């Protein structure tokens, strides 16, 4: 056998072997499961950023601060999902994918896994199934192999370019009880529902803190968010702790356009009865400076600017 023949045989053998050496991270089927998980852009509140921070409207600032807090809580859990989704599934079953276990970046003694299953659901039009998923933690030194649930969610896909309807519930208490070192502060639970099938995208969440000593029921806050295709949105939340002694809690309904101009309408939900019908209003332009304001919570009513400049009418 001459060297050409040897070369050819070796090359063909190498080609045959190497042709079986393909590797990839995930398949199209995996994408079905990946897209069932909530993504940050689905559920976080997208308040347009101010062009300037000099002298912004009071209730724009209040809205911005709550949005930051709200999104921060969501990011705590979406970060875990993103960490899992960035990797290929470690196990594939006919109707299930498992990501992990992989190490928790912040707590080296703990491992995380994400399990997504596809379950029949006649209520999901055109598809007949939905996805259910859970995020679980496991202490590496725990020989029992027990996994502790942190997050459980479900998602009904729409089968279109838009996504669908989803919800998830976070309960930090079992994990705390299992000795998880922390990272949730006073957060006890998050209950979130969202739909991204049609505009407006809607998100409704209840965030519950741990009960403090002496509290009969733990503090809970409701948030509601609507987002239109053009970037305009509405975020409603309740602020506890008063602006004044007479105002113990108040609800803020902030609305904004895609340009950034917006309006916040505030009403007292807890406080002196005389103020229950009081309203405060801030309207702002694209630079977030006040264009119109109304102050009722203090004695007397104070108005500045022209209400006709507001991006929205009174609700």
């Amino acid at each position, binding site marked *: 056998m001459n*060297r*050409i023949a040897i*070369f*050819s045989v070796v*090359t*063909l053998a*190498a*080609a*045959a072997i*190497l*042709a*079986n*050496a*393909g*590797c*990839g*991270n*995930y*398949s*199209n*089927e*995996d*994408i*079905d499961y*990946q*897209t*069932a998980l909530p*993504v*940050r*852009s689905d559920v976080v509140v997208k308040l347009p950023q101010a062009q300037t921070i000099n002298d912004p409207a009071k209730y724009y600032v209040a809205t911005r601060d709550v949005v930051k807090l709200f999104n921060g809580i969501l990011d705590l859990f979406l970060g875990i999902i*993103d960490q899992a*989704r*960035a990797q290929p599934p470690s196990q*594939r079953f006919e109707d299930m994918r498992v990501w992990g276990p992989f190490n928790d970046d912040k707590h080296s003694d703990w491992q995380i896994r994400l399990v997504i299953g596809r379950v029949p659901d006649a209520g999901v039009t055109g*598809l007949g199934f939905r996805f259910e998923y859970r995020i679980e933690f496991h202490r590496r030194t725990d020989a029992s192999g027990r996994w502790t649930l942190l997050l459980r969610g479900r998602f009904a*896909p729409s*089968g*279109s*370019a838009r*996504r*669908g309807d989803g919800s998830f519930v976070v309960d930090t208490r079992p994990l705390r009880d299992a000795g998880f070192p922390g990272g949730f502060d006073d957060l006890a639970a998050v209950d979130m529902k969202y739909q991204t099938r049609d505009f407006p995208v809607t998100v409704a969440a209840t965030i519950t803190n741990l009960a403090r000593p002496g509290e009969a029921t733990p503090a809970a806050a409701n948030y509601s968010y609507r987002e239109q295709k053009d970037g305009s949105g509405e975020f409603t939340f309740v602020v506890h702790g008063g602006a004044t002694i007479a105002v113990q809690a108040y609800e803020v309904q902030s609305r904004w356009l895609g340009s950034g101009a917006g309006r916040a309408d505030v009403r007292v939900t807890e406080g002196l009865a005389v103020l229950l019908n009081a309203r405060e209003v801030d309207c702002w332009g694209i630079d977030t400076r006040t264009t119109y304001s109304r102050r009722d919570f203090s004695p007397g009513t104070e108005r500045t600017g022209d209400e006709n400049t507001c991006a929205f009418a009174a609700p």
Partner: protein
Amino acid sequence: MLNHARPPPRAHARAGAAAVLAPLVGMVAALVVLTATCPLYAAGLHRFALVAGNDTGGADTRPLLYASADARRVHDLFTQVGEVSGEDAHLLLNRNANDFLAALTALESRAAIASSHGERTALIVYYSGHAKDGDLRLGESHLPLGALKARLSKAAADVRIGIFDSCRSGVVSRTKGARRAPAFEIEADGGADTRGVVYLSSSSFDEDAQESDLIGGSYFSHHLVNGLRGSADRSGDGRVTLDEAYDYAYVRTVAETAETTAGAQHPTFSYDLKGNGDLVLTEPSRRREAIVVPASAPAGVYYVISAGVIAAEIVKPARSERRIAMPPGTYTIKRRLADRLRVGEVRVKGGEPVTLDESRLRDAPFTDDPVKGARRELGARVSLGVFGSVQSFLDAPTRDSLFPPTGLVGMELAVRDFLRRDWVWAFDVAFGGSQGTLSRPTVTLPFQFSELSLGTSMFAEWPLFDRRLVPFLGGRLALMVLGRTFDGTEIPKQFFATFSPGLVAGVRYQFAGGFSAVARSRVHYLLYNVEGNRSLGYFEFAGALSYEF
């Protein structure tokens, strides 16, 4: 005038002449002495040389590897030790018949002028290349051998020497009844001066002339040049006569080709001469740069190696010095013993000979043979090309949901004649991309597809039409890295990498100046093994422009 069909061996010729021409024994003896002592050496002839080599011979022939290299060596030989001045030597490499005849006309004119001034002249015509059906093949052009012979027979020069190194070149002497012969001797018939025509051919009329990678040329030309540089100087007088050169070239060519698969190749000769004196073709002793093997050195064949190729050989008899004229340079000397090699280096400096010192050679195993062969040095050719291609997978579901049709641009580096003549080993890199939409039951996602391909191909070429049009077919192994980016989503980049074997076929059109246009197609197999195994195939069409260095 002598018109020898086959001159008998030297000893027999003398015995026969003595018997038939008894009354002239004394005169013949005198002539023999005269021949031996007064050869027609260089100083007596104004020499002109036309040296042509052509690697191609038209569509029905395969290209030669070393024809032009042979011509270059012969040209160097005659201008260095053959007393041919630069202005009287024409070197034609890969030129056509018209160029050949024009150069011949120019030299004939110069020879006629020299003759008119009373000089004696010699015209040497050397050709290395294809010959077929009675024609010399200079590329696509043909030069009838009969016409060339007729031309030489009437040329104004006193002596005309035709040397043809080509397949079946023995046809040049066949009409004269020339035959294979181990040696011949040109003898005078009593005339005052030698005049006439001599033809040497590298092979008989039914043989192929053979080339060798080890010597980087044809056997015949190599040994002829080698002999004329001094190896053939049997008499040791520092001059190489025509019969010495032929004798040496014949013996060495037959001996070395006898071991080849094509079989022994027998150089032939014929001549039509009259006059007195042996023809001296070269005078190596007049050139100071030389390698001298002293009489005290062991007998045997000393190979002079340059750049891994046997540049010359010195056949050293016992107790006799041998000298070979070589241009300045550093050479490796090799002598082969039964169980080992003796290897060393000599450096020929300008203006002085170097004497080989046997004691400075070292022992070396056969595996360290300094002769590497010429193919890589002389045959391998490198080209670099750019291409654009369109790639598409064969089955629609794969095109629609996984790897969409894609445009690619890339570069290809090709090495021709590296492993084998007309085999090409190529390396390519290509990058491209396209856009698509993934439609799943649960979601519809637009994506950006990208592909990086690194490949190596091995294919054979079949040159046609004087190597202008070259179809090719072969195999390829590619490393493919395929990726998709789903813009506007949190889904990480999807990738798949694999090796993909395939076939490649196409045609290359060679333009002048080293440029080629290539049309090429590929068919590849790909095993997609994410979530189960799927055998996929894709094809690719490409257009390329390449340049050969």
